[in-house]
């Protein structure tokens, strides 16, 4: 791996962990190559002189759209659990979360 590449092996491992992906060495190598190609393209964009230009956060120039605060019907329980394999009464059932993930609103 070239020293000037943006994403090295350590960054690759970190990204895989954040994305909750287990990657085989070959997959990791392939994705690493692709990500670095992307980073190179982004690097080119980064060369453009943008000092004093306000970043465009959103592509569209849209007027703000709101909905009024009115309650609309929700899904029936049957539809809510339609695709769920793990259900306990009216709850979704998931593995215990103690000690994992960042969590919280």
């Amino acid at each position, binding site marked *: 791996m070239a020293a000037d590449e943006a994403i090295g092996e350590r960054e690759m491992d970190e990204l895989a962990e954040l994305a909750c992906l287990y990657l085989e060495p070959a997959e990791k190598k392939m994705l690493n190559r692709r990500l670095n190609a992307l980073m190179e393209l982004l690097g080119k964009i980064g060369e453009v002189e943008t000092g004093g230009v306000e970043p465009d956060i959103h592509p569209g120039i849209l007027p703000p759209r709101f909905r009024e605060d009115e*309650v609309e019907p929700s899904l029936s329980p049957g539809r809510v659990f339609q695709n769920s394999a793990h259900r306990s009464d009216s709850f979704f059932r998931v593995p215990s979360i103690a000690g994992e993930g960042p969590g919280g609103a």
Partner: protein
Amino acid sequence: MEYEAVIGLEIHVELQTDSKIFCGCSTAFGAEPNTNCCPGCLGLPGTLPLLNRRAVEYGVLAALALNCQVQEKSIFARKNYFYPDLPKAYQISQDDYPLARGGYLEIDLPEGSRRINLQRAHLEEEAGKLVHAGDSIMSAAYSLVDYNRAGVPLLEIVTEPEITSGREARLFLEELRRLLRYTGVSDVKMEEGSLRCDANLSLRPAGSSELGTRTEVKNLNSFRAVEQALNYEAERQARILAGGGEVIQATCHWDDSCKATVVMRMKEGAADYRYFPEPDLPPLLLERSYIEALKEKLPELPRQKRQRLRERYGLDDEEAAIIADTREMADFFECAAESYQDHRNLANWVQGDLIYQLREAGKEIEQISPALLVELLEMLDRGEINRPVAKELLEEMVKSGASPRRLVKKRGLGKISGTEELAPLVEQVITENPEAAENYRRGKKKALAFLVGKVMALTRGRADPQELNRLFKEKL
């Protein structure tokens, strides 16, 4: 070495809208699990968020009440993390461009008032609610998820790290709750989770300006828990540092039954959330005129109200604080004070007996007419009833809403005075208590009080004690 605590709070406030922030599902608390969910709440592909106008309005109102600078442009961003309470695997929040920046809240400490500065306030969506099967979060075999809460609008308020103790944190939260309740944007119930607080705490050598390694304390479900947990955590860190150890950046869980913090996980840095602008929502643009119009809608806030109550009605700090605790209580007091001039006496009855009776009867102050309390106090002032009877009437008045004057008539609770009515009772008591009567004649002054007490008991406290004193003295 002396250490001082540096505490910053992150407060989540559920905004009291009828529907969720990005969809029309109900926000009602306590519904059957997973019944207030649509494809958006469940994170199903292809759903799009549409912003609730009232959530923005409430967020702006709260920010203005907190003296924040509301931004004309703010941006929603995706905060990415994997956790079962978050079905999309990202939370729509705000990052670099929050709804409001700065601001402050003043709290009253015994040594004077103190301004706690705020970093920011931003809008975001609630996550779902996890229920842990088993005895505790650490030993749970599995977790259950209810997505009813997912998408309820939240305002996150972040303070600067300048709170110095558990006590200060508690006072800050109490004042914040009062303020938000005044603005009407949230019901701020800690027990229902509509007001929640996480805290960051680090220690530094007293007088130093550097920040030490911090821990985050979660699961603070009451004001008392906030105070206890932060004091505990400060002591825990001080013990580590005193023993030459190093505090490790981590998230702790407050265990209220053991009164201890438990380290849950090593904390990851903020960059791990990989924030990026939410492509499904345009920037939130607010006209200055809209913000100014909302400013006009703000009610008088607790601090100003307390000051006015002190100045206008001559109340002391404590009386003003109790009466201005809620807008409704202050409105009640001021309405009664219009027609009843002894304001201190009024304040005394409101903060004491009335609040006690309301609590006993499980009633709210709005259910009581101020005119009835005035009627009661005027009857007492004119001597038509005595104090014990007034208290009895207040209890009944709060329970049934009945007029005290009518209750007196109905139950014959008026004061008994005049020789004609009292003299036979005095005679009776002397006959029934010859020993006490004899003692008084021999000069024992205490015997008089005993005899008067006997008549008071016979009349259930309605007799005029001064007149009884006079009558007994004449007789004996």
